[in-house]
C-alpha cells in the first residue's frame, strides 16, 4: 500500500500533464489552448519539485535548530521556469489578439476555413 501511495504524486502530475495536452490538441479555441499550455507547464513544476522533497526536511532556508533541508536546486530551476512560462503566455495572448483582429475569430477551425477560401 505504501508503495502505491509513494508514486501518487507522479500519477497526479501525469494526469495533469495529459489533461493539459488533451486541451491543447482537442480544443480549437486559442485562449483555451493557452490555458491548457499553462496547465501542462505547471504540472512540469510539480514533476520537478516533488522528487526534491525530503520527508522530515524543511524549506531550504538555513536556520539554527534544523538539520534536514529539501533539495534547493529544483526550486531554483522552477522559479526560472515560472517566469519563462508567463512570458510565453503573454506572447501567445498578444498573438491571439492580433488573430482576432485579422480574422474576427479565435477558433482555429474557422481561421483555417477562411485561409482555404
Amino acid at each position, binding site marked *: 500500500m505504501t508503495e502505491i501511495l*509513494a*508514486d501518487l504524486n507522479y*500519477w*497526479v502530475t*501525469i494526469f*495533469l*500533464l*495529459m*489533461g*493539459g*495536452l*488533451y486541451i491543447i490538441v*482537442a*480544443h*480549437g*479555441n486559442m*485562449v483555451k489552448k493557452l*490555458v491548457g499550455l*499553462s*496547465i501542462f507547464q*505547471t504540472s512540469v513544476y*510539480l514533476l520537478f*519539485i*516533488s522528487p*526534491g*522533497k*525530503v*520527508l522530515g526536511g524543511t524549506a*531550504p532556508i*538555513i536556520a539554527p535548530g534544523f538539520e*534536514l*533541508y*529539501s533539495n*534547493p*536546486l*529544483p526550486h*531554483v530551476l522552477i*522559479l*526560472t521556469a*515560472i*517566469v*519563462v*512560462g*508567463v*512570458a*510565453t*503566455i*503573454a*506572447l501567445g*495572448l*498578444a*498573438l*491571439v*489578439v*492580433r488573430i*482576432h*483582429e485579422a480574422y474576427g475569430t*479565435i477558433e482555429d*477551425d*474557422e481561421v483555417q476555413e477562411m485561409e482555404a477560401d
Partner: protein
Amino acid sequence: MVVVVIGIIRAHNLFAVVILGGAYSFLLATVLVVLDAVDVAMTEAAVGAGMSTVLLLAVLHLTRTREAPLRHAPAIPLLVCLLTGSALVYATVDLPPFGLADNPQNQHVAPYYLENAEKETKSPNVVTAVLASYRGYDTLGEVTVIFTAGIGVLILLSRRRRRRRDLIVKDEGGSKHDA
C-alpha cells in the same frame, strides 16, 4: 487540482475557464508549500494566479468569451493522451521512492549548496544564493527571455494601435469630405 482540471476541460464559458485556471494556480501554490518550495509557491501565487489571470481576462475583454462546441469527436487526442499517460505511469515504476534524503537527485550538488551557500554568499536562503550566485547565468538568460517576450508583445500590439489610428484618421478625413 484534478477536479479543477476536469472542470477546465468541460467548461465552454471562457470566463469560467480563466477563473478555474486561477483557482488551479492557488491550489498548486498550496501543494508547493507542502513540498517545502516556499519561494516557488510565492512566485506561482503572484505570477500564475495573479498576472496570468489578469492577462487572460484582458484578452477575453478584447475578444469573445464563449468557446465554439467541438466539431469532431475528440477520439484521436484522447487515445494519444491515454497512451502517453500509461507509458509515463509505467515509467514511474523505475523512479526512486518519494522523499528519501539519499535519493540520487538529492545527493548530487544539493548538499554542497546547503553546506556552503551561507558561508560563501552570506544569504541564509539557499534558493536565493543559488539563483543569484551559483546559477546566475541562468537568471541572466531568464531576463533575456522576458525582455524578448516583452519586445514581441509590444511589436504585436503597437501595429494594432497604429492601424486603429489610421482608421480614425481616415474616418475624420471622410467626414470632412462629406461636410
